[in-house]
């Protein structure tokens, strides 16, 4: 524990570095996966193509990706941007299928009635399909968040400072406490982001809780009191 107290500043800096590396890919992968997932859900042909290609992206091993990316996008070999791009690619690979499945999970009756009362394709997507696929999207986003935080540690090997730097440095200098700190801090950060997403979900998807409370009340045979 002495090592931890003596290096609080270092731990804080690496944690911030780690956040800066992992939060943008989480957001970017969601934003990029939305139109792709919509397209995949919309047409049978595009579904096969998009889901297969995005699934294959996840199969690319990370180290070759870090080496090939700078050549492809014109960054330097040690730029942190490489890591952000690579993590975004992995995130998109996971999220596209989630978005497609989430949109497909929206009740067909609700969709039909939305069209019947006059939602256009555009308003239907933003006001009906997207919010109603929220629970599925949130579940997918939580997986992406945790996997991104964990993958971001490999940045240390290609020169992007992160909590992973604590393992590499700890290995090189034989400081066991530093290695353990890196692992524990990574797990805590993943839990923190996961918790943040759950909190956002509670705010953004209030109706999902309303339904649960009705079911719980029905089970207990209690009248439902809903305060406005």
């Amino acid at each position, binding site marked *: 524990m002495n090592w931890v107290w003596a290096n609080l500043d270092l731990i804080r800096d690496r944690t911030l570095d780690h956040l800066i590396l992992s939060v943008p890919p989480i957001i970017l992968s969601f934003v990029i996966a939305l139109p792709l997932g919509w397209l995949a859900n919309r047409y049978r042909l595009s579904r096969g193509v998009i889901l297969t290609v995005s699934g294959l992206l996840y199969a690319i091993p990370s180290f070759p990706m870090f080496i090939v990316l700078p050549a492809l996008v014109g960054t330097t070999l040690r730029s942190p941007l490489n890591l952000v791009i690579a993590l975004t690619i992995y995130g998109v690979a996971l999220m596209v299928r989630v978005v497609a499945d989430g949109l497909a999970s929206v009740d067909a009756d609700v969709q039909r009635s939305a*069209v019947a009362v006059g939602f256009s394709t555009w*308003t239907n997507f933003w006001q009906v399909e997207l919010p*109603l696929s929220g629970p599925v999207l949130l579940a997918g986003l939580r997986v992406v968040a945790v996997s991104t935080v964990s993958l971001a540690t490999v940045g240390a090997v290609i020169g992007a400072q992160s909590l992973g730097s604590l393992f590499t440095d700890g290995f090189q200098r034989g400081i066991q406490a530093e290695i353990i700190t890196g692992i524990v801090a990574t797990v805590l950060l993943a839990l923190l982001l996961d918790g943040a997403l759950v909190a956002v979900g509670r705010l953004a998807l209030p109706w999902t809780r309303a339904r649960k409370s009705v079911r719980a009340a029905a089970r207990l045979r209690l009248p439902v009191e809903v305060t406005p």
Partner: protein
Amino acid sequence: MIEFRSVSKQFPDGTLAVDDFSLTIPSHRTTVLVGSSGSGKTTLLRMINRMVDPTAGTIEIDGVDIASLEPVKLRRSIGYVMQNSGLLPHRKVVDNVATVPLLRGVPRKTARADALAMLDTVGLDRGLADRYPSQLSGGQQQRVGVARGLAVNPNILLMDEPFGAVDPIVRAELQQELVRLQSELGKTVVFVTHDVDEAFLLGDQVVILEEGGRIAQIGSPTDILAHPANDFVASFIGADRGKRALHVERHDGREVLVDSDGRLAGVLVGDAAPGQVGVPR
């Protein structure tokens, strides 16, 4: 007035759902399309707001060919109520009712205030306004569905088996409520059902459909019951059996009515005043 002119609909899989269908639906009256499944009744209803486009023929609303209208705009001007309410589960009751006015650009505050007033119209407590649809009973959800259909004060209200999924007691209540509303509002209601009793209760004009949208008979409930056009209609409306086939029996000097199963239906109290039966509301 809604006019179907030689309308046909063939689905991509080859099914001919509607074949050369012509019908005039008068304004400010309730027209009920009744038939068993496969009669094309729902397809016909969905053609009115262009959820389904005919493969042949034209449909006119007040003389305007609806094929020339933009579908989204057309739908926002027509009320639509469906089975299982079709409410948006992620929006509160009041926002569900305000849905179409908001789509048409009515300011949020006005739309919500109007929606609350509409809850009164359909007989719902304003206290339910902030609940989600899943927190309401089936009957309440259906009332919200009707309120949503009426929210833009449309001339036309399309109702696709709206009371099909609620229990018989609530259904009877909702039917009476619709009769009351219609007597106040006088909309052009097009109502689809497979339930003959419901059709006779609600319809000023009842259209009995056979397979492929073939019209077996059109008329007021009284016309149809008194003079079924053919055996199909007679058997479909049950004119030959059960509570519709009544006969008079004399019992201690009074005439009682008995149905075909031998159950007592009532007593005969004399002739109705002329015109009391079968007057359009």
